[in-house]
């Protein structure tokens, strides 16, 4: 019935405890250099990671994980002069490190600050020659190219979950096909009124956030072990 896949991620802000495991697992899996992060956890109210802040007379600390949104209508893809940033059939916004001329047009275009750049030779913090950490399928990046979250395309193409999804200890992240109305992601978005980040830019992100929820009628149901 529906055309091709539209891979997307649902992040449940009710479950997220801002532990940065997803961000660190991402770094480990994709060999992201020191100083660069493809995934980071913003603290909406506080002035620093782990700092509370005030909203409307209430102390709060809301965790907002942010990575490439894999926008359907991606400004970075439109802006790249050489098509080094491009969109796959399944919605993943990709980066071609061999084409990239390092002009950083895409960084100017991205509303979410999702792209990072290797301003020098990538530093890995590995004091032993010839050791490459992470997924062997992930290409190493030279200096002076842009990079960003790839939805762990190397894993997804193997039918695995993105590293951050597999790593999240609180099971905050659900990955799946947004075009399939019966997928976990679609159901979650429908029933928990999921929403996109910065929709005013019309980028139509493939990442949805579920709001925190409290005080709903108590539902008697015991989760399965590990659930």
């Amino acid at each position, binding site marked *: 019935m529906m055309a091709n896949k539209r891979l997307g991620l649902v992040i449940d802000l009710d479950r997220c405890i801002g532990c940065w495991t997803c961000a660190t697992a991402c770094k480990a899996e994709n060999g992201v250099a020191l100083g660069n992060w493809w995934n980071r956890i913003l603290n909406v109210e506080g002035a620093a990671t782990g700092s509370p802040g005030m909203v409307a007379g209430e102390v709060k600390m809301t965790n*907002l994980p942010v990575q490439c949104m894999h926008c359907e209508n991606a400004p970075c893809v*439109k802006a790249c002069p050489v098509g*080094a940033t491009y969109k796959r059939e399944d919605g993943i916004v990709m980066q071609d490190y061999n084409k990239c001329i390092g002009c950083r047009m895409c960084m100017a275009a991205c509303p979410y600050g999702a792209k990072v750049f290797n301003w020098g030779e990538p530093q890995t913090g590995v004091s032993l020659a010839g050791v490459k950490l992470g997924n062997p399928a992930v290409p190493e990046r030279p200096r002076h*190219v842009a990079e960003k979250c790839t939805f762990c395309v190397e894993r997804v193409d193997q039918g695995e979950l993105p590293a951050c999804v597999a790593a999240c200890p609180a099971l905050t992240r659900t990955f799946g096909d947004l075009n399939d109305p019966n997928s976990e992601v679609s159901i979650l978005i429908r029933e928990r009124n999921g929403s996109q980040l910065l929709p005013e830019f019309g980028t139509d992100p493939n990442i949805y956030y579920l709001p925190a929820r409290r005080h709903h009628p108590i539902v008697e149901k015991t989760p399965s072990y590990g659930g």
Partner: protein
Amino acid sequence: MKNLSLKGLVWPGLLAALMLMGVAAWVYQYSAGLQVTGLSNPVSWGLYIITFAFLVGLSAGGLIVSSLAYIMKNDSLERIAPLGVIVAVASIMGAMAIIIPDVGHPERIVNILLGGNPSSPLFWDIVILIAYLAIGMVEWWILFGKRWRTAEPTRKNRVLRRLAYFVLPLAILVHSVTAWIFGLQVGRPFWFTGLMAPIFISSALVSGLGLLLLVMLAVRRSAKIKDEQFTSLGTLLASFIALDAFLLFSELMTISYARGVDAFNVVSELLTGRYAPFFWGEVLVGLVIPFLILVLPYTRRSIQWIGLASGLAMVGVFLKRMNIILPSFQNLNLDYAPGVSLGRYTQFASPFTNQPTYMPTWVEIMITVGVLAGVLFVITLGINQARTHLKPFAGEARSA
């Protein structure tokens, strides 16, 4: 030759030295990597791109004025039209040159022409810049080339006039596309405005004509340019400035009026925030003062004052480029802590920021100065050509 005197060599020598310094700085940057610039993930464009936009503006301005001269068949203007061509060609070369140190992989720039992305304003900008440079060279050649030296001035002008019909729209286009590099970015609220191209054009006219006037000043004896010409072009400059000021105002007014919009974050940065000094500097130095100079009865007739006004106007436009480009980078749409990673690593220091800053390093400054020196060098070259091949310059040469 007379103008090969030692005295005559000081100026080009100085420029050549600055250019060499720039090249040296670039070689260093190339080996050490862009990490020696003040750029970072959040502020990923800086002095280079500001200068790029400024130079494209200069050249567009120069060519627009000269083409207008031919199209309007204005005799007195036609006499200085060649200077417009010189300015345009020199600036556009500078603009293209400064892209090279900015991009991470200059060796791959050809990719743009091989597999360009038609939806990218940057792609089109490169294409049009090349076309634009080409046509500028053609004019240069027609003006100073051997083959045309013997040609009848009237015939020469007829050709130039025909060309002008292409050059004028191209000049406007080249700068509009440059403006759209910014103006089409929905993710940068302050850039994302239909006025971006008009604003770029208006300030291009200001800076272009400003430079033209300064060049005229430099050659006015040899070129036998009458003071009235300065005054009339000065008046033209004043009206360009007025137009520029008007567009700027209507843009800022619209945003400040709404306030609620994201672009207001940047606007308030300009009016009252970190960028206030630069913005009000731009208004004063670039608009108010030169405008007054150019309209007040006494100063508008003094070529020295007009020269000063032109210089100030150019400085103003440079500030304007900066004020358009930088604050948008320094205001993150998601400015929650800890912000975005910088792309820089220092042990036991946070690589994140939600209030990005930018300060060009010496390397950036040296490279930029080098490029600007290059622009002046080409202009100097052009003027020498004019001296030797053009009336009334030629006349002077003979009388020597």
